[in-house]
């Protein structure tokens, strides 16, 4: 599996046997995963390009008009004549614009926090496994503590203390999620560190830091990538949940979760679109990420290899 522990093959041979190439080939052999990936790429593209595509900046109060509030999908804007294809929310926000901007927040919060949590968690896991002893015990009990707490409750506590805002939501998610990576990285690293190639490296007098980063870490990556993909989806859902509960983003800059929460009060009066469309956007994003994540798990899990 590891290039460093194998005899050096010819250049062409390396290409043909590259594990990542196999991963890519296996990944695209599943049509649903490919569809998921395409949808995800598309969503990320429109989210990144949102400021240039939308008709209205939904976070600029100057561009909103409360007289356009709660218009049904397909209604025309009163001032400049563009159409609200998905209707408007209670403040006169164009829902297409609001959803795209909301996706930006969701993806930024989700991917950003998942990546940072991954780096922190992996490092902690590796150090814990390699050093062992009381440090390992301490770190892993901390992880146990974090994992045993209901996530929402923890998040509510942290946010009540830190206050609202996108930055604080990310911080909260990072604080909650690094534990998953740490636990996995440690387990994987413990297994790997008993392998022959690690002994061989030690025998050659390679320093511990180089062994951990250069030899053990690459072999721990596959499961961590899988967790990463699923944690992004989890982080996005959690952000939406926290915003729905009024603890996430500011009300004038709604994310998907807050859009859904705002529309919730109009559900009984048949103004369904305010909640429905942001909800669908959230649903599609999460499903796409999960499809990709599931497939990655299948192709990266050595135990599922035939």
């Amino acid at each position, binding site marked *: 599996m590891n290039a460093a522990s194998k005899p050096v093959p010819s250049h062409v041979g390396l290409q043909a046997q590259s594990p990542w190439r196999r991963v890519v080939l296996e990944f695209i052999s599943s049509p649903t995963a490919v569809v998921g990936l395409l949808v995800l790429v598309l969503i990320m593209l429109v989210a990144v390009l949102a400021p240039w595509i939308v008709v209205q900046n939904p976070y600029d109060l100057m561009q909103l008009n*409360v007289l356009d509030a709660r218009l049904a999908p397909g209604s025309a804007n009163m001032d400049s004549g563009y159409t609200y294809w998905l209707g408007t929310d209670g403040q006169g926000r164009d829902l297409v614009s609001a959803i795209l901007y909301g996706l930006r927040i969701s993806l930024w919060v989700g991917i950003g926090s998942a990546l940072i949590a991954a780096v922190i968690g992996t490092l902690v896991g590796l150090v814990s496994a390699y050093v062992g002893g009381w440090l390992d015990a301490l770190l892993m009990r901390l992880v146990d503590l974090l994992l045993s707490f209901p996530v929402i409750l923890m998040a509510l506590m942290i946010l009540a203390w830190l206050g609202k805002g996108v930055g604080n939501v990310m911080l909260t998610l990072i604080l909650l999620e690094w534990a998953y990576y740490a636990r996995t990285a440690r387990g994987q690293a413990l297994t790997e560190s008993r392998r022959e190639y690690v002994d061989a490296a030690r025998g050659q007098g390679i320093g511990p830091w180089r062994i951990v980063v250069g030899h053990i870490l690459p072999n721990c990556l596959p499961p961590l990538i899988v967790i990463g993909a699923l944690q992004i989806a989890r982080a996005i859902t959690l952000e939406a949940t926290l915003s729905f509960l009024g603890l996430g983003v500011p009300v004038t800059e709604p994310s998907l979760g807050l859009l859904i929460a705002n529309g919730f009060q109009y559900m009984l009066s048949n103004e369904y679109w305010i909640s429905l469309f942001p909800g669908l956007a959230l649903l599609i994003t999460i499903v796409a990420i999960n499809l990709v994540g599931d497939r990655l798990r299948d192709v990266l899990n050595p135990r599922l290899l035939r």
Partner: protein
Amino acid sequence: MQPRVRSLIATALLLAAGGVSAQDLRIGYADPVSSLDPQLNNYAGDRSVALHAFESLVNRHDDKTLPGLAKSWKVVDPTTWQFDLRDDVKWQDGTPLTADDFVFSFERARNVPGSVASYAGAMRTVESVSAKDAHTLIIKTRTPNANLLPDVDSIYIVSRHAGANASSADYNAGKAMIGTGPYRFVSYVPGDRTIFARNDSYWGGKPTWDKVDFRFIANAANRTAALLAGDVDVIDKVSPTDVERLRKTPSVNVFAYQGLRALIIQPSFREGPNEFIRDNAGKPLAENPLRDVRVRKALSLAINRQAIDERIMQGTVTEANQWMPANTFGYNPQVKNIPYDVKQAKELLAQAGFPEGFQLTVHVPGDRYPQAPEAMQAVAQFWSRIGVKVQLEVLPWAVYAGKANKNELAISVIAWGNGTGEAAYALTNILTTVDSAKGQGASNWGHYSNPLVDKALVDSTAEFDEARRRQILEDSVKVVSDDVGIIPLFHYQNIWAARKGLKVEPLVSDRTAATMVTEQP
């Protein structure tokens, strides 16, 4: 008395028809309850719960005062009031009610440990309360106070024998929950519900309901859903977004009444820099621009109140130009609706030295006043059009109230209940100079201070002639309006909904209690 008589008839009719023997009423209400101690906090939720078990000195209906625990009263001299108390009233544990209980109640209300919204304001003019005999009460005031009845009537009467050593926790535990009201306490689950049962020894008409399940449902949509699902019989504070839907539902009746509660913006008058008021570069301004009447006027003129009424509140409010709604004692008809005038607002801002506006952080509680965050978002939109860039922060009430009380905010929002139905109540609590020793300005979160307003309260309090008192209050409305001491937005309607067969009639302002609900065959 009217509703009581009616409820009596309704009950009689039902009994005669041999109908249901056990009549239970389940109410879903919106206002959080901080404590069952009826004297701890002057909060809407606390007052509604207390209305079941406790009573006050007299009965007030809108701006009329009717006999209650006191049969009659007279002003002996301008600073001495004498009340003749009913002698047939018993506490729910059987002990007779005496004047001494009133003495105890009024003294306790001045200072209940742990209070964050005390009743001290109601007692500000009272020098002493004493019992002449078992059923005669004397209240002496420091200065003549024509407004004494609405003042002291906001204080619930608790018993000395059960309450002398009771803390607020003893009320929550039920130990001290012994009142004279139509319903007696059964159980209380904080944040969830209070259960009451009929007080069979009630001195008035027989209370309609055997058992009252008074349930806290914070979310308006959840209240509506609970009513539609039949989980509760009555809900209060129906969300404007649900009114139309409920009106169309045949199994439900909607009861909307002109309310006394006004949503009011309180600008901060604090001197010096405020972290929530910054120049366009983001640096806190050295001086508070809100102290300039031109800036306050600009902010008021920039708001399209009609749009808020129609688009946000869906026609369930009335545009406000002062703190009292029309046809109340102290309402000034000369003060006209505030026009929506962006041009003039911009000019005023420029004159005040802010042609490009400034940055302003606005705070609003998210869990207390119906639709307040939504309305304030619209206000933020309007203000942004004159260059005042608003950041809106929605806070939980517990956090918000603490900050507002310390005058830490730049713009605070209050939905003032005007519970006594006359203008002096707001003068006392939200407009006069903050002075806790005098019990003034308890909810004057912006620390507005105007000698003319302070004088108006003093004068109106001393004026026993009703016409002249009315005039003083109306003049004070004009003073505040010209000075833009507060920025009024709208008056809420009070909206209840009940399952078919029930009728809801308001008792006082927007309180909700089982006594308001009668059978309607």
